[in-house]
């Protein structure tokens, strides 16, 4: 049973959440909150998660190598360490028919491990296996995030049983209701009465437009709904997961879009991929005098990686590359307009500039997501 996928999951947690609050009353003095969160997460994985053996073996692998890299081999292995932690995920993504190691949610656990490893210098003193396993396997964020950070998750655990209170329960419930509305009503409506009625292979302009906008609405409602459900259940269980969507269709440019769409992935890629690449490029002597080129290489590589991470199918790679091109073009425009004091908009009113920017950005994002969907007839 995958998290939030069907009604059984909600029945299960309608029992487990009150049990957690009951445990607060009964076990408060005797059992630490972190142990109960870890126990509950393990219980769910062992009893209900599909392919629990693979998930547990993978968790063991990640724990072992995170420990070796942090406490035995130290940080000198940088990229090699990240590759070691990402190896199972890469093998699964390469799709070499090695289903034996694959399971749903492998990428998100890998991301969390790499974060702990790369922030190792800061986290070494705070590292505890009970917290780490709870962090990796926390049920609400197990399948598709949001991608939390260890230090933030641990701060919630350290506050202990006081995290379980009426305010957390009520605000979690509100997120849960909004998530249900997005995922099971709005996304379902978009799928059933919009997307399913359009021929996905059609090359007629009207059909392609219907596919493009329909998929964007469906994906947003489904994914934002899932994230709201995860945040809601997380809060009810005392953990405040980070926000993942923040009105992304009102953004005016690509960097802003990625600060509002799948926020936790955008932040992760910025901190653990873009910055290290930019830093490495800065060390290259020949690129010292080419700051724009360095930024653009790092930006494009980051989005290309994001595309490849979804899978090595052409539509994923092209959609990642397209988001990369958007960012490179916008970054170049920003750089040049600052340097040469361009004034492209002249005396155009601010509201008009803002409206045009929002319209253009929303359409560019819809187009890239249309390619991502695999429904675009020329790239699939």
């Amino acid at each position, binding site marked *: 049973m995958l998290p939030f996928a069907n009604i*059984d*999951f909600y*029945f299960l947690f309608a029992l487990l959440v009150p049990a957690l609050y009951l445990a607060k009353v009964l076990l408060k003095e005797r059992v630490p909150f972190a142990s109960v969160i870890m126990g509950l997460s393990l219980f769910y994985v062992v009893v*209900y998660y599909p392919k629990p053996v693979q998930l547990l073996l993978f968790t063991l692998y990640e724990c072992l190598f995170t420990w070796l890299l942090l406490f035995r081999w130290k940080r000198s292995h940088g990229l090699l360490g990240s590759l070691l932690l990402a190896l199972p995920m890469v093998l699964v993504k390469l799709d070499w028919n090695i289903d034996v190691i694959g399971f749903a949610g492998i990428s998100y656990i890998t991301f969390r491990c790499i974060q702990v490893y790369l922030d190792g210098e800061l986290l070494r003193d705070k590292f505890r296996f009970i917290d780490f396993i709870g962090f990796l396997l926390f049920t609400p964020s197990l399948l598709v995030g949001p991608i939390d950070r260890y230090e933030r998750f641990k701060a919630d655990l350290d506050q202990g049983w006081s995290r379980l209170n009426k305010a957390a329960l009520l605000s979690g419930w509100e997120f849960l209701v909004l998530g249900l*509305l997005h995922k099971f009503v709005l996304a379902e409506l978009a799928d059933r009465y919009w997307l399913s009625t359009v021929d996905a292979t059609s090359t007629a302009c009207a059909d392609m437009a219907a596919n493009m906008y329909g998929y964007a609405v469906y994906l947003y409602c489904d994914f934002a709904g899932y994230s709201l459900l995860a945040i809601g259940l997380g809060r009810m269980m005392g953990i405040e997961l980070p926000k993942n969507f923040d009105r992304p269709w009102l953004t005016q440019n690509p960097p802003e879009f990625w600060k509002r769409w799948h926020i936790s992935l955008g932040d992760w890629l910025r901190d653990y991929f873009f910055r290290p690449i930019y830093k490495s490029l800065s060390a290259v002597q020949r690129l010292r005098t080419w700051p724009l080129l360095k930024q653009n290489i790092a930006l494009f590589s980051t989005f290309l990686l994001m595309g490849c991470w979804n899978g090595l199918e052409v539509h994923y790679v092209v959609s990642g590359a397209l988001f990369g091109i958007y960012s490179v073009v916008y970054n170049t425009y920003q750089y040049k307009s600052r340097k040469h004091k361009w004034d492209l908009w002249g005396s155009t009113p601010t509201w008009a500039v803002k409206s045009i920017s929002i319209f253009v950005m929303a359409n560019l994002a819809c187009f890239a997501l249309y390619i991502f969907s695999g429904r675009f007839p020329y790239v699939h």
Partner: protein
Amino acid sequence: MKTDNRVFRIVKWTAIYVVLALGLLWLHDPRSISMDAAKSSVKFVYQQF
């Protein structure tokens, strides 16, 4: 202002609950609801004692 916020909140959440309830009833067949997971978790907890 406070009353306005409260009224707005009540109207907003009433609308959300109504749309959610009608949407769930319309789009998802209530007869397909199964209690299997709830039953097995109650059984599992019961077995621990």
